[in-house]
């Protein structure tokens, strides 16, 4: 495959020397044109108001939409989607070098890497916001931010970008796009164009939310909740638009990955052989497909509420409606984040212990039941504002959902028992992730108790709890996966010493920060406050120091990771002796995974069986 690209670049066009515009530059340019034309049309012609500025809430909504379309067309959708749709031949030649990452691509591995990089960029942008927040919180008065609204916008930006561009995306759009087709023995995802478009929507969302304060500060936090949102300054419009872009991105990816897992599996990869990670991605994708449209409709109503206005959540509705529909999605959202992480434990541990996966069916059952129950528990976010008679049912379901959640522990612990555990960085990170999620789970059981919840709700106890589940479980598992698959991605191996330094550094700093979040919450520190009573200052100051250490820890891992990717020691294919299919192929981005296609002969997690897991199909069988 790669050779085709190389040939093209040597062809006649090269001699004629007409170079194409860099797609990203063209995308930015078309976006700017789109914005300028449509915004002018709306604010100066169609919806002209005297004395109003050039960019109004209404005009920016339409202008942004045009800009997003311009951007998508510019980075490649024009040649890859629009023109072929009308019958022209595709004229989109992806050079076989780094350039392929900066243009629309149909290769699932390229898309996966694009997603990972964008998502990590989102993580560090939002992390920077967190550092700014912790800086402000070192003192009980305003000193870093000029206004409380600036601080609150930062909280919102942090939460929004973390959740919608990292938590929901990294393991699904990133690792999912790269690995799922490989793991199920396919050469591509089901709808390559869908993933290509969805990847390029993600940076739009991140940038829109990150730049929202240019339009005006907003104070609602990551929920964007009405009725407060309807009186927020205009930045809130960018929140809705940005989140819309990011959720659309996740929705499209999920549709693609679901279809891929359902229909693209290799011969012999029967349902009871589907890899654990694919199960996790399937469960998370189904959650996305069920719940994202729901929240997107809500965001659209809230946006209309702001720009029309359409007082859906005050006069003609009720103020709680938004919260209800937000959490109806919001709780499944946390499972979207954490289910792939559970799957990673069950993917990595059998390999590292070289031992058959324990109670596999219970592991799958756990993932699927968590997925099915996740819609029954949302109102545990609303114990402080629900009717008394709603409390017990929601408390009940919330407590019960910890049973299938616990199966992830059952499977993982059973697998490592009497294994021959290689104490590698991924193993260590998975263990840390399990420890952290244990704390997240114990605090979760407490929060499910209404009487305790009434005290801890909206305090730093809750903030500590959900960072334990999200960073503690998802980010640590993500790091484990990143080190685990590093040899697959780059053909190079990290150094165990430095990998472990990175893991332990992050683990200690993380627990120091968020363990104390739990305590300071109980001590009376509530959420969304840049200004707080003096007695909380010492503890906040010290938490902030650890938070900076944590930020540096993530940075260290990033730098080390990139370094290994480029300069690390070369390593053979399949250094962990794993059985899953992604290790049976050495295809780099741009290359075909399985040529000829493979046939799967047995499950991937049985280490008592020494026979090969797959064999190439003979040409006759392909037909």
């Amino acid at each position: 495959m790669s050779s085709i690209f190389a040939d093209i670049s040597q062809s006649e066009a090269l001699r004629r020397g007409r170079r194409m515009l860099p797609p990203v530059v063209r995308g930015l340019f078309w976006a700017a044109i789109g914005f300028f034309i449509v915004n002018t049309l709306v604010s100066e012609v169609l919806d002209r108001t005297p004395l109003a500025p050039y960019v109004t809430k209404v005009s920016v909504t339409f202008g942004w939409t045009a800009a997003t379309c311009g951007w998508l067309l510019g980075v490649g959708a024009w040649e890859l989607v629009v023109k072929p749709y009308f019958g022209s031949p595709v004229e989109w030649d992806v050079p076989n070098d780094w350039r392929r990452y900066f243009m629309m691509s149909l290769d699932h591995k390229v898309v996966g890497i694009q997603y990972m990089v964008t998502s990590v960029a989102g993580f560090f942008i939002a992390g920077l916001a967190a550092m700014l927040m912790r800086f402000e919180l070192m003192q009980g008065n305003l000193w870093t931010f000029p206004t409380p609204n600036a601080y609150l916008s930062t909280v919102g930006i942090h939460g929004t970008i973390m959740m919608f561009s990292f938590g929901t995306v990294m393991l699904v759009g990133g690792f999912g796009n790269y690995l799922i087709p490989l793991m199920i023995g396919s050469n591509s995802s089901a709808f390559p164009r869908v993933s290509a478009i969805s990847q390029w929507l993600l940076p739009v969302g991140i940038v829109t939310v990150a730049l929202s304060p240019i339009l005006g500060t907003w104070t609602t936090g990551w929920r964007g909740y009405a009725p407060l949102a309807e009186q927020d300054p205009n930045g809130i419009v960018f929140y809705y638009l940005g989140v819309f872009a990011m959720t659309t991105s996740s929705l499209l990816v999920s549709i693609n990955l679901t279809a891929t897992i359902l229909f693209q599996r290799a011969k012999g990869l029967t349902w009871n052989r589907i890899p654990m990670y694919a199960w996790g991605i399937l469960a998370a994708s189904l959650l996305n497909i069920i719940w994202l449209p729901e929240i997107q409709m809500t965001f659209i109503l809230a946006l209309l509420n702001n720009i029309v206005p359409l007082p859906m959540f005050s006069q003609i509705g009720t103020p709680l409606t938004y919260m209800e529909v937000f959490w109806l999605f919001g709780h499944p959202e946390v499972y979207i984040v954490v289910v792939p992480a559970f799957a990673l434990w069950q993917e990595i541990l059998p390999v590292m212990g070289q031992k058959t996966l324990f109670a596999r069916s219970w592991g799958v059952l756990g993932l699927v039941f968590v997925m099915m129950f996740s819609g029954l528990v949302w109102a545990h976010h609303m114990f402080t504002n629900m009717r008394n008679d709603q409390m017990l049912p929601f408390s009940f379901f919330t407590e019960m959902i910890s049973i299938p959640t616990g199966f992830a522990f059952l499977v993982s612990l059973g697998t490592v028992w009497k294994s021959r555990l290689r104490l590698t960085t991924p193993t260590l990170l998975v263990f840390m992730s399990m420890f952290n999620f244990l704390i997240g789970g114990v605090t979760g059981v407490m929060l499910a108790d209404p009487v305790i919840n009434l005290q801890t709700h909206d305090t730093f106890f809750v903030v500590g709890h959900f960072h334990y589940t999200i960073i503690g479980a998802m980010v640590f598992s993500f790091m484990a996966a990143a080190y685990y698959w590093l040899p697959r991605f780059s053909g190079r191996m990290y150094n165990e010493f430095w990998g472990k330094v990175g893991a332990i550094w992050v683990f200690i700093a993380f627990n120091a920060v968020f363990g104390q979040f739990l305590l300071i919450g109980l001590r009376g520190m509530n959420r969304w406050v840049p200004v707080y009573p003096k007695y909380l200052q010492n503890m906040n100051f010290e938490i902030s120091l650890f938070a900076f250490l944590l930020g540096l820890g993530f940075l260290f891992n990033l730098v080390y990771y990139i370094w290994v990717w480029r300069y690390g020691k070369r390593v053979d294919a399949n250094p962990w002796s794993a059985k899953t299919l992604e290790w049976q192929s050495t295809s780099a981005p741009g290359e075909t995974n399985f040529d000829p296609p493979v046939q799967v002969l047995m499950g991937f997690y049985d280490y008592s069986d020494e026979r090969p897991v797959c064999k190439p199909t003979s040409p006759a069988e392909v037909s």
Partner: protein
Amino acid sequence: MSDTPASRPTPRRNPEWSKTLFAVVFILVVIAAIVALFWQRQIGDAWSRMFGTERVQTGTTHIEQYDYGFHPRHITWRVGDKVTISLHNASATHWHEMMIGRGFDDTPYVVGPVHTQFDQDFWDGVHVTMSHAFKVDNFVPNKAIVTFVGQKPFTTEGGNFSPTLEPGGSLDLTFTVPNKPGTWQYGCFVQQFMHYVAGMHGTITILPAKT
């Protein structure tokens, strides 16, 4: 890539696009975004210093109130000029006021003292004409000498001179700039003094009279 669509056999363009152009544009856009995000205010101020209201205003100065700020944030007047403030509340949801003064009155508060109003009221003893009052929530004349043209808004007592406008409200204040040169502030302290904290303030430079 099993379903790579049929491509044109020889491309008409060289796909090896320029890295320099890409890098330059990309970096410029990133820098522009960062500058816009963190130094928006400073840039706006510099702009108005050069082209806008930083230059001496005569006649009517339009002041827009929004959530939570004033536009413009800087005004320059000269002592002895006859000027008009045309105040308009552009917010759809909040009422806003406009005080002008110097220094602060502070009240002790649980999380540290808060500014409740300006200490020295610019309007003390100033003759001012209020006209075109529309949707005025309330008006406190304090020690100004006020002439009303047209509808007289609801007036009340307490605190500095301040008209408070309902969402969409507006009014004009016409007066001769009194001999109080120097730097003054304007601000809005409504909703338990929080609009000021939220950034709703600006500065006025009053130049001494031309000799």
